[in-house]
């Protein structure tokens, strides 16, 4: 059985006087122990909301969560606040996008690391400080003893993200969720952070859900990729298969918009036309149809079902991109 089984997860935001928003609309995926699974998509596709729903971090008022998320036998979505607090940070941990705003500016790094150890591993005083220094050392922060006494603004962006990672892995969680962990960083630092994450999950057999808009990030480290569009998974495949034979026009569009060094001069990037706002409600057909070149009559009217193939690759399209014949 998988470590995490997400079945038909949906998140609806209701605010009085405002239109109801289906941010996540029936998302299913699973994560095995030690596996790296990606949720990929543009801003607003529901990938971050999915992760917050799993962590129980959505605002209590206004957000409605449906479906199920089974974590090693525990139904996460049915847990009360108190039991969720026992799991968060211990069994399931999260790394956020912007390391500066995600750290408390007026508290030394040390306390921000030790407070998790105190909460979940029952450590205190010197033992916690020693372990915190070990953790900082493990995520590649030089001179950890001194850094523990420093404040977030005294660290560089990369350091801060490393500190956040140290906090997340402090209790050896079985599942780590990284929400755009490299978006706020320089390109060189991005590579280092990804390398570090890869190393950490490999060494400790931690499962990782990688949330990103960047297929380049995914290419280097993920086992399984789920592409999200307008709150639904539109294509799901193992990494090699997805890059070699993408079937959903949206996935193809995403792949085409990655800048590459190995193409000839003068060849232009192909952006996907329109924006996420040009969406058809799923109940009226394929949400991507208004932006899609391969749209056919069958795209409109009925919501397209998820089509499975024998290799575990599945896609949600009535007119998929044909698999290219390879010589």
């Amino acid at each position: 059985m998988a470590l995490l089984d997400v079945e038909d997860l949906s998140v609806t935001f209701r605010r009085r006087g405002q239109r109801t928003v289906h941010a996540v609309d029936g998302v299913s995926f699973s994560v095995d122990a030690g596996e790296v699974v990606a949720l990929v998509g543009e801003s607003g596709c529901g990938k971050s909301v999915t992760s917050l729903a799993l962590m129980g971090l959505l605002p209590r008022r206004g957000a409605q969560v449906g479906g199920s998320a089974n974590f090693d036998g525990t139904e996460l979505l049915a847990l009360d606040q108190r039991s969720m607090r026992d799991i968060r940070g211990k069994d399931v941990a999260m790394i956020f996008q912007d390391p500066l705003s995600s750290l408390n500016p007026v508290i030394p790094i040390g306390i921000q690391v030790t407070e998790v150890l105190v909460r979940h591993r029952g450590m205190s005083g010197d033992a916690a400080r020693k372990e915190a220094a070990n953790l900082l050392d493990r995520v590649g922060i030089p001179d950890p003893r001194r850094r523990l006494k420093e404040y977030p603004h005294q660290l560089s962006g990369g350091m801060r993200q490393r500190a956040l990672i140290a906090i997340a892995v402090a209790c050896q969680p079985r599942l780590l969720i990284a929400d755009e962990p490299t978006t706020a960083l320089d390109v060189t630092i991005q590579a280092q952070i990804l390398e570090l994450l890869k190393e950490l999950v490999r060494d400790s057999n931690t499962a990782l859900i990688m949330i990103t808009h960047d297929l380049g990030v995914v290419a280097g480290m993920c086992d399984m990729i789920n592409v999200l569009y307008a709150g639904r998974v539109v294509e799901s495949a193992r990494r090699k298969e997805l890059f070699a034979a993408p079937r959903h026009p949206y996935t193809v569009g995403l792949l085409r918009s990655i800048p590459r060094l190995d193409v000839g001069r003068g060849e232009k990037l192909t952006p996907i036309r329109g924006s996420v706002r040009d969406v058809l409600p799923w109940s009226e057909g394929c949400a991507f149809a208004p932006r899609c070149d391969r749209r056919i009559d069958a795209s409109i009217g009925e919501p397209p079902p998820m089509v499975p193939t024998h290799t575990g690759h599945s896609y949600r399209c009535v007119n998929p991109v044909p698999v290219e014949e390879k010589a």
Partner: protein
Amino acid sequence: MFRFIVRRLLLLIPTLFGLSILLFVWLHRLPGGPETAILGERGTPEMRAQIRRSLGLDEPLLMQYGRFMKRLLQLDLGTSISTKREVTTEFIQRFPGTVELTITAMVIAIGVGIPLGYLAARRSGSILDHASVGGSLLGTCIPIFFLAYVLKAVFAEWLGWFPAIGRQDSSIDATHPTNFFVLDGLLTREWDAAADAIWHLILPGLALASIPFAILVRITRASVLEVLGEDFVRTAEAKGLTERVVRRRHVLRNAMLPVATSIGLLTGLLLSGAVLTETVFGFSGIGLFLYEAISNRDYPVLQGFILLIAVIFTLVNLAVDVSYSLIDPRVRVR
């Protein structure tokens, strides 16, 4: 830090110098003078001229200013025209009353305002939230003298729970080594004297607290609401920390930064004297005395008191800046 404090204290010198010039020109430009206050409307021109001469007011303004500065450098602020006592003595006798009143008002405003503002933010949109925002609006709208009279009429005159006037009951024969009546009572172990002094502070303290209370409720509420939406609070939640730790260590500590600044400013403001409250409750602090000094054109008192208030205001602000740098590591004073 030390250099920062010294520099700020040195800056006080030109500030006070400028203020003294402004004060001097402004006061002497006011129509009427001490002679009118002393003689009333009936004095003859000769009598007026004689009083002016005896007070040295017939000399050119520059000469008068020179004399004032010379005395000031010897820390001598002159003698009050109306009470014939030294200005410094008057200040030392009356300022403690204002300090006690300020502390009472700020304790009430902080003790009720901050928790209320915090709860309002935690339950934003609830009845409690609307009630506290409305209540704080009322606090700023009701004129202090009106509120003071209502409090006095209801709790002192009608219900008789609190004394209506003064700093201490006249029947109590207490010794006053410091002029802080509450502190004096504690120092001399005259517990009933201390208790009576506290009793006298409550109604004027409540009246004076209304505006700082209203401001603190609103600032705390806004600040907590802002911090609750911050990413680091979400990180704290993601760590699975208990609600208490998230609240105290992550929300409150950050939310208190703007509140601390307001507390400093408000304290400085209240220390400059509460004319209306002190008048209604016959409370002898600097506000009441300053008010009388203005009516009497008591130049030495006005000059001396206003300069001293400026010094105190600056010191309070300095204390705020220093404490701010202690709670927020990003603001390191140099």
